[in-house]
């Protein structure tokens, strides 16, 4: 079948947008948290719900695509996904937002499964179609947080969902045009190949670890270090850029999929461990670990997905398994890591407050100024709601005389430094744990030769 360029572009974009949703709201989480007055643990469900439902629905949706026409199913999935995006954008409460995320994941599962077949049909080649599908997914997952952060800063977190609607709906004509032409190369009555256990297990573990790289790093930047979503978006761009650089590197190395997957898992683990050892709260310290994580991402996801799909039928079903593994891994990552860092954040509270008290007491400001500051600082600390407090309003409210400005500024810097240290420390165990998950991915990756390379 001749390549249908516009259809390939529209369908690839749809795949990218759906899989970007896995992490697109990461940088919007602090804003969502404030709007719905919930906790860090509560807001993490905005990510968890989508990934959990997508993981659970991916294989059933893929089975449906094997039995029914992927063109028609894909169109339905795209419309459901777009409608649920609108629900998320207009959600008056966290409950409605979570319900919208469930709908997005259900529609998204059908979109992802059907688009694998549709892209193969549109490109006229199984390897090219599958590579397009996997590449669009990796690009979406890697660029999602960046796009989400920029939209949150420029407009609002709701705009993330609004912008997805036209992009996804633009693929509906392409899906309808391919009705009856996709997924015809497999007889549904024939037995299916078993899913590639090692590749899918490695995908799950790497995805769990990558959750940390994006979710934890973004929270550390925005909540812990008080960077804006746009700044955080720019900072975490290093991961997708490094992931793109991994392709040429892998091609030049010609080391084989097992070697790429093992090296990628080690790189992700090393990058995450370095994020646990940050020597300062400046964004520059996160760049090298992010580059290592990005290189690892580029080396692992592509090669593992290719191994999981290679020569296995039905294609859509195995595509479904890779999505289930990746998003199941993300859910496991969120479920393991969120309690760890929220507990560490809670434990860091008392020492941080004591450090703040010590610096205020020992500062060279007059007693009346210290008392005025203490009132404001007390309010900020009381209003933290499980988050890292912003102390700047306390200094503005104290309205200290100009003669004390230099000392007040030095004190504010000192207090911010203590908070940044406490926040950085609170994320340390979660980053280390995530690094361990990435390192565990080396074990299944070592089993890739044989079935994986048949």
């Amino acid at each position, binding site marked *: 079948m001749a390549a249908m360029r516009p259809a390939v572009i529209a369908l690839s974009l749809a795949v990218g947008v759906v899989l970007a949703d896995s992490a697109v709201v990461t940088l919007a989480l602090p804003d969502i948290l404030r709007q719905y007055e919930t906790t860090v643990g509560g807001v993490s469900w905005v990510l968890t719900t989508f990934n959990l439902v997508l993981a659970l629905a991916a294989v059933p949706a893929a089975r449906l695509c094997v039995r029914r026409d992927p063109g028609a199913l894909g169109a339905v999935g795209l419309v459901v996904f777009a409608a649920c995006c609108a629900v998320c954008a207009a959600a008056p409460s966290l409950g409605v937002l979570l319900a919208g995320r469930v709908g997005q994941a259900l529609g998204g599962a059908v979109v992802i499964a059907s688009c694998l077949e549709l892209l193969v049909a549109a490109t006229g080649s199984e390897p090219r179609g599958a590579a397009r599908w996997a590449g669009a997914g990796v690009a979406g997952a890697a660029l999602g947080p960046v796009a989400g952060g920029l939209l949150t800063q420029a407009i609002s977190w709701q705009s993330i969902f609004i912008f997805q609607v036209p992009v996804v709906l633009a693929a509906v004509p392409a899906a309808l045009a391919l009705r009856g032409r996709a997924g015809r190369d497999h007889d549904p009555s024939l037995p299916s190949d078993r899913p590639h256990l090692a590749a899918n297990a490695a995908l799950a573990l790497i995805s769990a670890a990558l959750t940390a790289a994006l979710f934890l790093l973004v929270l550390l930047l925005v909540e812990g270090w008080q960077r804006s979503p746009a700044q955080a978006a720019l900072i975490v761009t290093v991961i997708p850029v490094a992931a793109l650089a991994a392709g040429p590197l892998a091609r030049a190395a010609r080391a084989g999929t097992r*070697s790429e997957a093992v090296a990628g898992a080690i790189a992700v683990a*090393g990058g995450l*461990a370095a994020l646990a*050892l940050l*020597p300062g709260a400046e964004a520059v310290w996160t760049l090298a670990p992010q580059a290592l994580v990005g290189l690892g991402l580029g080396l692992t996801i592509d090669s593992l997905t290719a191994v999981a799909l290679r020569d296995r039928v039905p294609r859509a079903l195995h595509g479904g398994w890779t999505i289930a593994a990746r998003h199941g891994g993300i859910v496991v990552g969120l479920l393991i890591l969120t309690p760890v860092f929220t507990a560490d954040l809670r434990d860091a509270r008392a020492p941080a407050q004591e450090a703040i008290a010590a610096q205020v007491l020992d500062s060279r400001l007059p007693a009346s100024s210290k008392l005025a500051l203490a009132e404001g600082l007390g309010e900020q600390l009381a209003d933290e709601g499980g988050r890292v407090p912003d102390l700047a309003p306390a200094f503005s409210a104290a309205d200290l005389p100009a003669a004390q400005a230099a000392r007040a500024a030095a004190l504010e810097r000192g207090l911010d430094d203590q908070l940044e*240290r406490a926040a950085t420390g609170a994320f340390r165990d979660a980053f280390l744990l995530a690094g361990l998950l990435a390192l565990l991915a080396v074990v299944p990756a070592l089993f890739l030769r044989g079935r994986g390379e048949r």
Partner: protein
Amino acid sequence: MSRRAIALPLAALVLAGALLGAYALAGGDDYSEVQGAADPCAARASVDRPVAPELEALAERVVLVGLDETACSLGVSRERLVLALPVAEDRRALAEELGISEDELGRELKAGLGRAVDRLDRAGRLPRASALLPAIVAELDLPGFAEDLVDAIPDQTVDSLVPTGPVLRRAVRSLDVQALLDGLGDSDQLESMLRDAVEEAAQEEIRARLLDELPESVRGLLGE
């Protein structure tokens, strides 16, 4: 595994190891530690500095040393004590943690302030009343003739009538600690409470010292 296949994981391992080593050397190992609370029983540079001859600075120093004294005797950090005192619920929690009642906590605080005055007095850190007087007069915004009158009083007389140490001890003894704690959230109320306590103590000290100078017969006539 071929040499080519081993090279890529090995390169990743070297990169990761180099990055971790560099970050550990740059201080990543202990960056996330916040400033720990100092031992309240040990000397502290910030409280051993000379006290400026102003009531506010003097009151602050007495409170800071008092907090150290109280924290030391209770076996908690000064910061833990400071964070717990302004909020009734936190005070209760601290008292419970220490196995004492809230009243006992208040008494400990009062005793700590008393010991602070003694410690500062012994160390010669309490400014003389004559040194404090110009700032007090300036704050009172007295008419010109009254200021001239106060200026005319010899420093020696001022220092003998209102010696700083005894006045502060008297002020601490008369403090209503519960009211003081309840007013911690309002800096204006706290300031006026402390000022009233010091003024009252100063008046009582002057009265007591003047009476001491009088012959016993005259004191009897005054009903003392």
